[in-house]
């Protein structure tokens, strides 16, 4: 009769346990359970990383929420395929909390999700930035377009808008970039927003492939790209060299 000692038994138990754990991992449901809500890891980056948590609002089924998140992360207009996030994609972690208890209001046609509730929900995951997806019907939005918003580290997104609106809002909260379209309501301190400059654009004039176009928040300020994502995310498909630099240096 083959005798087994205690060490052998322990090693065999650990072997079986490891095997079961691997099976569990393959479910792609890496459980980081929080206080009542589960954090799902969507995409894991490196150790030195930026953690982005997606929260749902108004979704009738989770599948649709996950599809939207996938589009915003991996789609044509998502983080994975738009510079500078494309080059730093391995430094980005994405999470979802599908059962997040977050309320969003519409004030002056602007989606404003509750900041405190969003932060409490996002705390179920490692969290640097929070993106709440407000599930909005395209037809309703055609009749009454709602505004997405960016406040502190929280972006409240109208899903009926163009997909690039997420990167536009993210550039506000992550990089502190200003809107580059001109609005009368915008009155800004040029020192605070580095993607805008005064005439002749001394901030980026030394860089190739940059321009100096009039209008950046205010009519008298200048921007580095004619139609970039910060000016018009319907037409623009890139942030432009200067804005990419401003965002890249934060990684």
């Amino acid at each position: 009769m083959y005798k087994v000692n205690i060490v052998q038994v322990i090693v065999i138990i650990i072997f079986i346990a490891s095997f079961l754990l691997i099976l569990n991992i393959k479910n792609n449901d890496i459980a980081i359970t929080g206080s009542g809500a589960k954090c799902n890891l969507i995409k894991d980056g490196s150790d030195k990383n930026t953690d982005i948590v997606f929260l749902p609002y108004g979704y009738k089924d989770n599948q649709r929420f996950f599809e939207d998140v996938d589009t915003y992360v991996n789609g044509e207009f998502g983080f994975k395929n738009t510079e500078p996030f494309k080059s730093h994609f391995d430094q980005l972690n994405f999470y979802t909390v599908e059962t997040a208890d977050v309320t969003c209001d519409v004030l002056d046609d602007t989606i404003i999700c509750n900041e405190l509730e969003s932060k409490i929900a996002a705390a179920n995951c490692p969290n640097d930035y929070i993106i709440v997806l407000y599930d909005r019907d395209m037809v309703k939005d055609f009749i009454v377009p709602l505004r997405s918003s960016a406040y502190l580290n929280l972006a409240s997104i109208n899903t009926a808008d163009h997909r690039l609106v997420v990167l536009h809002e993210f550039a506000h909260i992550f990089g502190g970039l200003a809107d580059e379209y001109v609005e009368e309501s915008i009155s800004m301190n040029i020192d605070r927003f580095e993607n805008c400059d005064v005439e002749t654009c001394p901030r980026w004039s030394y860089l190739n492939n940059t321009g100096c176009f009039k209008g950046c928040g205010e009519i008298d300020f200048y921007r580095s790209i004619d139609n970039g994502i910060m000016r018009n995310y319907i037409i623009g498909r890139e942030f432009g060299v200067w804005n990419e630099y401003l965002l890249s240096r934060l990684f």
Partner: protein
Amino acid sequence: MERIFIITLILILSSGDVLAVTDCNKQNHLLVEFSYEGGLLKYLSHSINIGCPGGNLKQGDFRLVLSDDKKVIYTTYFSDPTKRFVDYSESNLVFGGLQSIENPKFSLLIPAVEKGKIQVYNKDNVQILTANIETQQRISRALQNQGGLFGWVENLLGQVTSLLKAK
């Protein structure tokens, strides 16, 4: 027997990514609430909760420093809480702007400390707020120990990994 041991080691190492993922259920944070009135930042309250604190953000109008008697524990930046960007598109154009918010209240999630000091600096590196923090509450970790086989397995692997690291 040696083969089983080697395979086991490989399995443990390959599961390292999972073990390395932060389990927010086993962390605490301080939820600190502030207000910004008449150009003055005010500390309102704090509470200790289960969950991950926010990360160390690298840009913003204000810098928050959390320290204890000996050292700086945590630093992060946050933007002007009186400003909100709003955007929408229509007919191939983007509109919106920068909304002003009067007397906003807002919160930050920072690492939990028993005793510490919060200091906030503006862009000119001038200290605009200091608040002493003390927490004596006990945290109830309802889900600290995962039940079931996988919870047991994870705990076991965690212990094994700790022992390996210790050696």
